[in-house]
Every structure is written in C-alpha cells, then in structure tokens.
C-alpha cells in the first residue's frame, strides 16, 4: 500500500500493462488522448486499454474529464491529439475514425449517456431500430428484429415493454432500452456514463448484476462513476482521472476506499463534523400539500423545518422533488394544502416568499438561477432590483449596483473579470457563488437548497457546504434536497425521504444508516423504525 501511495506522486499508478490479462489482446486502445475546450485542458495524454470480458470503472470527480473522454471514444467530440483503436471481430486493432458516432457504432461501441438519448415520442423498439435500417426502405417489418430483441432480453434479463412510448417508461426502463440499443447492434464495448445517478440503490444492484453477466459473455464494459462504493463492488479494474489526467489504473481488488479517495481528489479529505445547533421554532411549515399528476406529483406532503437545522430530503430524482421545490419557490400553486413561513400563512409567489424571508437555490442553476446573457452584477441584484437600494423612481442606481457587485465578488470569492463580465462565461462553481451571494446575504429565515452541489467540483462543493452551515448557525431553517447520500448524511440533522410524491416523517440522521435510507428511496418502509 505504502509503495503505491508513493507512486501517486511519481505519476500513474499501475499503468496500462501492469495488471492486464497478458494472454488476451486488447479490444480497445486509447493512446495519448488530449482535448482542450478553450483554455481548459479536459483530457491530457490519456492512455487506456480495455480487454474482453472485463468491467472497468472510470472514476473521477465532476469535471475530471471522464465524460469528455467517453464522448471522444463515441465520436461526439474530436480529440485534439491521440488515437483510438478498436479490434475487429477477428481481433486485429484498427484505428477508429474520430468525430463519427456512426463509425463508433459500426466498430462495436455502444454508449449509454447520462442524459438518455431517446426520442420520447417513439416506442422502445422504434428507438432501438432507429438507424439500423436503410432510411428509404419502404416497408419496415419489425418481426425478425423483435424476435432477436426478445432473445437478447431473455439472455440478459433486461426485460422491458418494447411497444410503450418511451415517455411513459420509468427511468430504469429507459435505461434498459438504452442498453438494449447497444446489444442489438452487437456492441463489444459498452460505455455507461454515471449509470446509477437516476437509480435507487436496489435498481443499481440489479444493473450491476446484469452488467456482470454480460461481461461473462465477453462484453467489455466501462462505467463512469464518482461513487466509491459501486466502483469497488462492481468493477474489475479502476482507472482514475484527475484534472484531465489518468492518475491511476489498478485492479479493483488492490484498492480500498480511502486510497481511491486520495487518488481521486489528490489530498486526503477529513469528513466535516456535523455541529450540533439548538433547534429553533419551525420557520417553514408545509401542511397537506398535493399537486400535479404522474411522476411529478405530490401527495399530502407535510413537513416542518426548524430554525437552526438542516433538514435533508433524500430521494431518487423525479419523485416529486421538482414539484416540491417549485411550490416552495412560489413558482406554482399547490392543488391543496398550505405553506407557512415563520407562522405566516401565504399564497406562494416568488415575490411573496422572498418578502417573507425565504431564499431559494434552484436545482438547475443555468435555467433558473442566472440570466446568462446579463452581467455578474445584474445577476447579483436581479432579485432585489425593485428595492429602494438599487433604484429610485424606476431608474437603476448603477453605483449602488456596482458597489454591491464588488462587495459580493470579494466576500464570496467569485472568480470573474469583474461585475461587468457576462455571467454565462463563468464556471458552474462561480455561478453558484453568485446565487449564494444574492440569497444568503439577505439573512434569510428559510433556505431552500435544491441539489446545490450537483456538477460542482470538490472545492466549490465545500464552499457551498460551508455557506449553508454558516446560514444555519445564524438561525436559518434549511431544506436541503439532494440525491447524494454522502452529502445528506454530512449536512443534515434530520433526514426525510421522498418517494413517488410522498414524504416520509423526518428522522434524526444520527440514528439512520445508508441502507435504511436506500430502502426508503426505493419505496420500502424501513421496519426497524426505532
């Protein structure tokens, strides 16, 4: 172990050849892949080989370059330097034409993207067959295709109704369609980008069982992840990316959690201690909220968040978190039920909830958080532009706005050329800092933080966590909606679980463990309630 740790400093741990099954030839060979986006070096001289029948985990933080690498492999991006070679069915390595998904498909590479690439207005089978037949063939009998697919489904255990419109399938079923797409095209390499991000822990387990049986049949699998647990349990080999470089390539059995964390982050992380703060009065109170229909509905949701506490709301994405956040944000009226802030019942509207001291960190910060075409300064005051501080008689007070921008840029360490810079050009972390500055600086009573660290790197994530702790210390009631169990356990005093629009009663985080929460996320009431 110690010698390995020493190697970290010297470069790549392991290395492409060190632990490879020597008797087998590689099915895929990435050599010297480099990709830049403007000033950002997303991939730097990456070498990676893949052998038949193995499952490789590609581990790394958000922004480490994992997705970029796989998009190069699949032809969505073109590498600035380097080559991709893939073996013919005969086993001979041939260079793969870059920038062409069609070439990648033909060569036997299948990819399951994090955001599914499915046409929701077509059925499963029509999605699978898309692009597999000549566009101009007048008749499209699906009989033989269906027979083949049914065999593939039987063999792999990936069963799904092929004749349902994709928009009506669950997320797990949609993922199965995605994998079937690759298998139907006789993929020999299957790449999955963050495949468990949208699944419950139990669904994830099933997925990895399926992948294992596919690998046993000879399929080579790469899955991208930043979750240590699944990397350790499901892969044969781990490749770790950090800041665009491959920093380790190791057999999984030689790894443990701490070691991988060190390699991934480049330094050892001390888990932040949960400070205990005295719980104050309930500042946010939801009673019997119901709304919507289908997957984005809420059923009789009641919840109290107290001053000085962080209440974590766990759940797999798409179980009603969106509707709940919209109602608390005032963007949508519930069908029934009521909402109180600090004892005052109100009719939710963005303006009203803000006036009562509730601030919101939206889930999709690019869509709901900032106006990308406007400046950093304008985005910092956008919620308060009508307040006396920034206008008189309807005319903007530019010096006050500028002053406010300078102050916030300084206090929140927003990295930008200045208040006049266009917000769209900032990184995700700095955009989140704009939102933190304009919300938390108001000394809010209630903070709604929806997926506040999604897509951020470790540094920015820590910053968000610190700011939320500070707000809690000042007595704010914080509702933290997250899919990241690590984050929830690290931040929350109490945890509730949302499943199919129903919210479980919150329980002390200290008395809970991950598997209990995982079961509840899958819709099972945990039995050991005490």
């Amino acid at each position, binding site marked *: 172990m110690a010698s390995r740790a020493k190697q970290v400093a010297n470069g790549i741990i392991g290395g492409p050849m060190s632990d490879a099954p020597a008797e087998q030839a590689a099915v895929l060979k990435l050599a010297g892949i480099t990709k830049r*986006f403007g000033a950002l070096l997303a991939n730097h001289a990456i070498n990676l080989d893949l052998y038949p029948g193995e499952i490789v985990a590609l581990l790394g933080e958000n922004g480490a370059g994992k997705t970029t690498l796989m*998009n190069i492999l*699949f032809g*969505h*991006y*073109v590498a600035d330097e380097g080559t991709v070679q893939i073996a013919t069915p005969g086993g001979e390595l041939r260079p793969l034409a870059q*920038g062409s*998904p*069609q070439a*990648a*498909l*033909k060569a036997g590479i299948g*990819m399951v*993207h994090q*955001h599914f*690439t*499915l*046409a*929701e*207005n*077509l059925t499963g089978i*029509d*999605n699978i*067959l*898309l*692009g*597999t*037949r*000549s*566009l*101009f*063939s*007048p*008749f*499209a009998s699906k009989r033989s295709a269906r027979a083949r697919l049914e065999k593939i489904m039987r063999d792999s255990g990936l069963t799904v109704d092929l004749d349902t419109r994709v928009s009506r399938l669950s997320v797990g079923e949609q993922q199965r369609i995605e994998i079937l*797409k690759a298998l139907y095209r006789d993929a020999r390499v299957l790449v999955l980008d963050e495949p468990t991000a949208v699944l419950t822990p139990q669904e994830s387990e099933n997925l990895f069982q399926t992948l294992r049986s596919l690998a046993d049949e000879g399929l080579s699998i790469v899955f991208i992840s930043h979750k240590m647990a699944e990397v350790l349990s499901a892969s044969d080999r781990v490749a770790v990316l950090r800041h665009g470089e491959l920093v380790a390539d190791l057999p999984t059995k030689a790894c443990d959690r701490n070691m991988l964390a060190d390699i991934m982050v480049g330094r050892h992380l001390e888990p932040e201690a949960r400070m205990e703060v005295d719980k104050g009065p309930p500042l946010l109170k939801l009673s019997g909220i119901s709304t919507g229909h289908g997957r984005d509905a809420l059923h009789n949701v009641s919840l109290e968040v107290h001053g000085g506490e962080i209440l974590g709301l766990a759940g797999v994405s798409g179980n009603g978190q969106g509707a709940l956040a919209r109602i608390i944000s005032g963007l949508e009226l519930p069908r029934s039920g009521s909402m109180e802030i600090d004892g005052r019942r109100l009719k939710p509207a963005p303006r009203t909830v803000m006036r009562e001291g509730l601030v919101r960190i939206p889930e999709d910060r690019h869509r709901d958080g900032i106006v990308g075409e406007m400046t950093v300064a304008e985005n910092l005051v956008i919620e308060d532009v009508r307040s006396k501080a920034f206008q008189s008689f309807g005319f903007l007070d530019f010096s006050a706005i500028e002053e406010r921008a300078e102050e916030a840029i300084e206090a929140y360490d927003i990295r930008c050329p200045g208040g006049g810079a266009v917000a769209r050009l900032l990184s995700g972390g700095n955009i989140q800092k704009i939102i933190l500055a304009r919300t938390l600086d108001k000394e809010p009573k209630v903070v709604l933080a929806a997926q506040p660290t999604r897509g951020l790197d470790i540094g920015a994530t820590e910053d968000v966590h610190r700011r939320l702790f500070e707000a809690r210390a000042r007595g704010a009631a914080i509702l933290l909606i997250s899919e990241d169990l690590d984050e929830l356990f690290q931040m929350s005093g109490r945890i509730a679980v949302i499943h199919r629009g129903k919210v479980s009663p919150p329980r002390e985080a200290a008395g809970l463990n991950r598997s209990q929460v995982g079961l509840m996320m899958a819709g099972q009431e945990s039995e050991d309630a005490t």
Partner: protein
Amino acid sequence: MIEILDILVNPNFWAAAIRIATPLIFGVLGALICERSGVLNLGIEGIFTAGAMAGWMAVWLGADLWTGVAVAAAVGGVFGLLHAILTVPFGLSQHVSGIGVTLFATSLSYFAYRTALPDVSSPPRITPFQPLDIEGFSDLPFIGAALFQQTPLTFLALFLVLAVAFILNRTPLGFAIRAVGDNPAAVEAQGLSVFGLRVGAVIVGSALMAIGGAFLTMSAFDAFFFGMVNGRGWICIALVVFASWRPGKALLGALLFGAFDAFQVRLQTEVGAFVPGQVFLMLPYLLSIFALVAAARKADYPRALLKPYFKGQR
C-alpha cells in the same frame, strides 16, 4: 336555417371548399414536415409566392404544366435549403430567418416577374390544369360531383396526405424525422445525421409549400398577381398547431377551413347587402387565430422545435 342546409348539401359548395383547401393542404403538409424535424419554417409565405411565380413563369415560357409544378417545387426546395442552412448548421433564430426568407422570396419573385414582364397592363394568362375526369368516378352521387370538378393537383394533395402519413408513421425515415424533432441527440447516438435529416425535411417541406403556391397560378387561377398569396402561408402555420402535427388532422383542418371560407362566400351573396364585404374576408384570418388559440393550450409541440443542435458543443 333551411338556406344553410341547402348550402351544405350542395356538391358545388363542397367542390369550392376542396378547391380552397388544396393549397392549404400542400402548405400544412410542408410546414408539418419541417416542424416534425424540429424546424419552424416561416419562409412559407414567401415560398408560396415563389412557387406561384416560378411555376406560372415556366409554363408561360412554354413548359408543360407538370414541368411547371416541378420547377415550382425545385424553387421552393432552394429557398428551403437557404432556411435550412441558416437554422440547422448555423443555428440562427428560426423566427428571424423564416421572416427573412419570406421577404427575400417574395421580393425576388416580384422583381423577377417585373423584370420579365416590365410593361404589361393586365397579367398574361396560361392554360391551367383542367378538372380531372375519371370514367365512372364522376357519376358517383354527391362525392363524384364534388370531386369531379377538381384538377389533378388536388388529387396529388390528397395522395400526399396519405403518403406523408404513411412515411411518418410506418417507415424508418419517418421514425427518424420524428425522433430528430423530439431529441436530436437520440438520432445522433444511433449514427444518423441530424443535419441531413433536418435539411432534407426542410427542403422537401418547402417544395410542398411551393407546389401549394403553384396551385394558385396553375389551377385556381391562370395568372400571377402581386399579393395573391395573401396570408395563406401564415394560415398554414396556424393550422399545423390545430392539426397537432398529424397529416390526417391537417387534411381535416384544411377542409374545415375551406368549407368555412366557401360558406362565407355563399353567405356574402345572401347578406352582402347589409354587411360590408371585408367582414367576410376577415373571417378566415380570425378563424385561423381562433383555431390556434383553441389548440395552443394542449398543443404537443415537437420537443426540439426551435432548438438548434450543435454536435459536440458544450
């Protein structure tokens, strides 16, 4: 009341309705194909004009009628290509590009017409398409009489409704077009070209729009007038929403529209003495707005409509 019934059971009335509906059928189908692939084509009004002018001009210069139709379609396709290049690889605003194509196609048609015919006082005429007489068919009661008066272009329009419906719902090409209008990434991930599908759909859709225009100068009338398209293109854009992007419903919408328009013409002769004629002329536009408003709430827009797709861009 009796009079209204009299109008509705008169085959001549339905013949007029179908005649009015024909250019709209071409236009709605064309707009529908573009939009199903994810591209709004507001060039339609200008492409109608260009098709009307080009088809007529070809025949006037000596081509036969079907060659004229082909010329119109080709000209429409070229303007479609222009719109497609601006909106698909360049990803420019589909609204503004479409308006630009309309202004361009309209002014170019007028300019070309005036340049070719600098000093004619009354527009020259061609021999237009004649009603198609199919043995036995025209003897059918009512339907025969309504359809008997139609020219081959009307039958082409009706055939195209079936063809477009079949292609969209039954063939790999149709699935690909519907998919690219819903989620272009899905199409690219399956190795198909978003660019090719969208550009192709806009070209073909625009060609159909142009044939709709050609119907005006080569079947409904026998000459080209300035301003003769008169908002028909915009009406088609409204009808597509009304038709929920389905060819069958598009036909229904166009026929309803044609029936209403024919009805107001009949009504005008009845009560024209008491109500100014413009009130009747306004009705089609108001009806289109009404149809759009009625359908807008539950409209199931193609998800990728108006959204440009850039391959490999972050």
